[in-house]
């Protein structure tokens, strides 16, 4: 077998050296009745070519050739081949967690740069080396807030990504954390006024998302003030941090839970992605996840090492800040390289292009008779559209025209079956936006 660097004669030689007759002997601690007598019923073995053929066949069964208007936490943006060429270097791809600093300085310095970029982007003081994804970053942020405040209630806006809220609910359930949701105003922004005062009193944190799930920008100032006045923390969840290229960072927030997939990471049917938690310096010892820190060796040379490990499971076990061990390091590296390539100007320009494109699309949709924009708030590259008919019906017809239409909101918000979430990025050609508008117009008018 091509992955196995041994010949039969070497195997025999090694068995001899060990002093056993056959390989079976080495498995004798497994009771005989549990040892398999038959080969497993698995497909294969396949040669490299056949593996490629199998996956090419699968790829052909997916959406190639379709134009997609989906976002909702997962974004298609420009990616440079440079990033991929670099992360495929064996020294990055096939290295382990950098516990042995002397032969892991490459990964460690890159993590330190990642932490810096994430801090700069979010306007926070410190960021970790990654969490699994945005949904678990958010969930862990809530647990962190609970530890910091010793309060057990969390107020969560219904404009936060519904799948993130679902994950939070799953984790919170057995930890005695009460999740209380609150609604949104006609602008599409949170309706903070709807939160009862009693809830505030017990709240560890209030969780908002900006741009929120409807694509609408939230004003963090007022909610931060209320939260802080009540001894609660403000957690800002960000699923499309590209917005931060032209939109003010959530400096008012105490914890930022981020999904960084948008920065060079392929959608890959949902993962691997890159969660991040960023926060204030004073909260760092309650932050979960790895951290690289700067230090020196005996000769005074700068170097980096994993630090503050006393927060982590391998040291603290059941008292750790989290159970996370393996994280998304390689994709944090992707994000790091991608952002270094974009740089300050590139990020700004990219964000600005998204704003322009999405506004062009918004205007195009608005002009279709019968189609409305239900929310008045400012948006970045996503917005909600209300159709005269259920989105699912419209999408069926769009699919026949090789378009993946708006996300039907009733998937998460029962009753909202006529509303759809549209995402347009710099990669969506103008012609495709116009084709969508024309198709929708046709469908809406035809009435069938």
């Amino acid at each position: 077998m091509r992955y196995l660097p041994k010949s039969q004669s070497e195997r025999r030689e090694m068995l001899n050296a060990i002093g056993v007759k056959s390989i079976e002997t080495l498995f004798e601690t497994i009771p005989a009745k549990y040892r398999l007598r038959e080969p497993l019923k698995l497909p294969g073995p396949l040669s490299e070519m056949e593996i490629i053929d199998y996956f090419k066949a699968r790829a052909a069964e997916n959406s190639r050739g379709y134009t997609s208007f989906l976002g909702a936490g997962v974004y298609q943006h420009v990616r440079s081949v440079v990033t991929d060429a670099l992360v495929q270097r064996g020294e990055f791809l096939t290295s382990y967690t950098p516990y042995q600093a002397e032969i892991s300085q490459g990964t460690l310095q890159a993590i330190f740069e990642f932490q810096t970029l994430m801090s700069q982007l979010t306007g926070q003081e410190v960021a970790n080396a990654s969490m699994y994804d945005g949904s678990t970053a958010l969930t862990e942020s809530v647990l962190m807030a609970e530890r910091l405040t010793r309060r057990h209630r969390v107020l969560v806006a219904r404009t936060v990504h519904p799948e993130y809220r679902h994950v939070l609910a799953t984790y919170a359930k057995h930890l005695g954390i009460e999740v209380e949701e609150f609604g949104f105003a006609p602008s599409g922004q949170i309706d903070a006024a709807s939160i009862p005062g009693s809830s505030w009193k017990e709240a560890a944190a209030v969780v908002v998302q900006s741009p929120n799930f409807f694509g609408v920008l939230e004003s963090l100032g007022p909610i931060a003030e209320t939260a802080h006045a009540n001894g609660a923390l403000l957690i800002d969840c960000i699923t499309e941090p590209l917005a931060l290229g032209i939109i003010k960072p959530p400096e008012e927030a105490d914890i930022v839970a981020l999904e960084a997939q948008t920065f060079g990471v392929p959608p890959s049917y949902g993962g691997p992605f890159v969660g991040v938690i960023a926060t204030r310096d004073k909260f760092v010892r309650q932050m979960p996840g790895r951290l690289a820190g700067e230090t020196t060796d005996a000769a005074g040379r700068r170097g980096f090492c994993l630090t503050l490990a006393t927060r982590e499971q391998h040291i603290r076990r059941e008292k750790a800040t989290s159970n996370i061990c393996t994280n998304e390091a390689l994709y944090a590296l992707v994000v790091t390289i991608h952002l270094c390539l974009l740089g300050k100007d590139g990020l700004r320009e990219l964000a600005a292009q998204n704003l322009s494109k999405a506004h062009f699309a918004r205007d195009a949709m608005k002009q279709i008779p019968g189609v409305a924009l239900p929310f008045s708030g400012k948006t970045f590259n996503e917005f909600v559209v209300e159709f005269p008919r259920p989105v699912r019906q419209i999408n069926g017809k769009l699919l026949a025209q090789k378009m993946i239409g708006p996300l039907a909101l009733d998937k998460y918000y029962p009753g909202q079956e006529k509303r759809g979430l549209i995402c347009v990025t710099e990669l969506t050609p103008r012609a495709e936006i116009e084709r969508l508008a024309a198709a929708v117009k046709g469908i809406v008018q035809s009435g069938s």
Partner: protein
Amino acid sequence: MNQKHSTTDLEAISNGVRKARGHVNQNEGLIFEKSVTGKRGIELPPLDVPAIDAVKELGAEFARGGVEGFPEVSEIEVIRHFTRLSTWNYAIDLGMYPLGSCTMKYNPRVNEFVARLDGLATEHPLQPGEVSQGCLRIMHDLEKCLLEITGMNAASLEPVAGAQGELTGLLLIRAYLESKGNARKKVLIPDSAHGTNPASVVIAGYEVENIKSNERGQIDIEHFRQFVTEDVAALMITNPSTLGVYEENIAEIAAILHERGALLYMDGANMNALAGVTRPGDFGVDVMHLNLHKTFSTPHGGGGPGAGPVLIKKILEPFLPVPVVREHDRKFALDFNRPQSIGRVRAYCGNFGVLLRALAYTLAYGPGIRQATEDAVLNANYIRKHLEDSYDLPYNLPSMHEVVFSDARQKKRGVNTMDIAKRLIDYGFHPYTTAFPLIVPGALMIEPTESESKEECDLFIDAMRAIAAEAEANPELVKTAPHTTRVGRLDEVAAARKPILRWKPRQHLDATPHKIATTVIPTA
């Protein structure tokens, strides 16, 4: 060379080292230190719609001028920066990575290729099923393979790491027991367990009860029986244990648990010792997770990503997290309609890109996966055999895929496991796992995996024996290792005491000794 040594020292440092030598290697500052206003590494196609004035559109409340401190560098500088950084890393592609419990095996290149295919890397997790059949089929096919390998009945591919698999499995146990009327209070964990186990137990809302291994590093059946009270929801066990030893009474343990209404959770991180040889489903396991980034060869990438699918017995199926992949008539769909589900542990469908690579790995072997297991166990035993004379073996039980020594002998000369590990670096190897499992003080936990040739194992054995000899003859040499790396041992205490966790412009301008500054050269 990172320190000043006398000539004799120098000879001692490289004497007998056959696998590595020093070579010139590029320095490189932080990317922020290379930034100059006006440079950039990506250019965008021109905008094909009218440009919006962002400041006007967003207003003062929202508009941002740009991210302060973000680097400004060109494409070639990015290439060089990360290429240089990469050369400071050790990696499987460079040599043996004998980290116990980590299963650092070869990461096949074809897996990287297929993961990047147009039509796979490009797919959105919320796109309609009609245009996702390829992705769904991949998940379905992987699930079938994993069930066959483990002998379990159903699976969730959603967890994205071993630890998340543990949590998911525990939540399933809780949901199941709740459905029986009592979620119970405790989860038993042997003292040899990995740190994620107790940490996960807590998040699942259980208490941890540690149980001591007996003098053979195994669970003492009689002792164990007493632990399994009405309060016990499950035992969470790693098999083979983190000592690399098969838990000989596992079936009996399962029976005891089942008899008392509790379940058996197996941490499958060490499945590389079992695949194709025995199946947890057959010996009584109710819930387990696999680490695809260990046993199934997906790359660790400097710390992640991973995937930690959970495999379960039939009785637990109603509680699986949503969504679940379902097949009907060769059509595949995501099933969200699961009223008894524990919920969701991650948005979307898990680390699809990792799942895909694991399937590619499995297809490459097919039933031949047993040969990989055999080679892994062969390598571990071969190394054990050749090091038994030099290192203390605290638990003298048959080893499977890994072997755990202790530094008891070397400690007499003041040399501990970390020193030996660091000295291995000079010999051209990545260290083994140190300081784990906790039941072995000064542990040297060595897992070669099947990916190592006899040649590489022999060089490792030579190195380990040479270091044992050095620990006798010249302990200082070992205690001050590594000697050949671009930085020496770092001051981790200082790093933790006054953490510097990000670059800041001011701080670093002061710290000139560390900086590879661009000198201003006086023009003649």
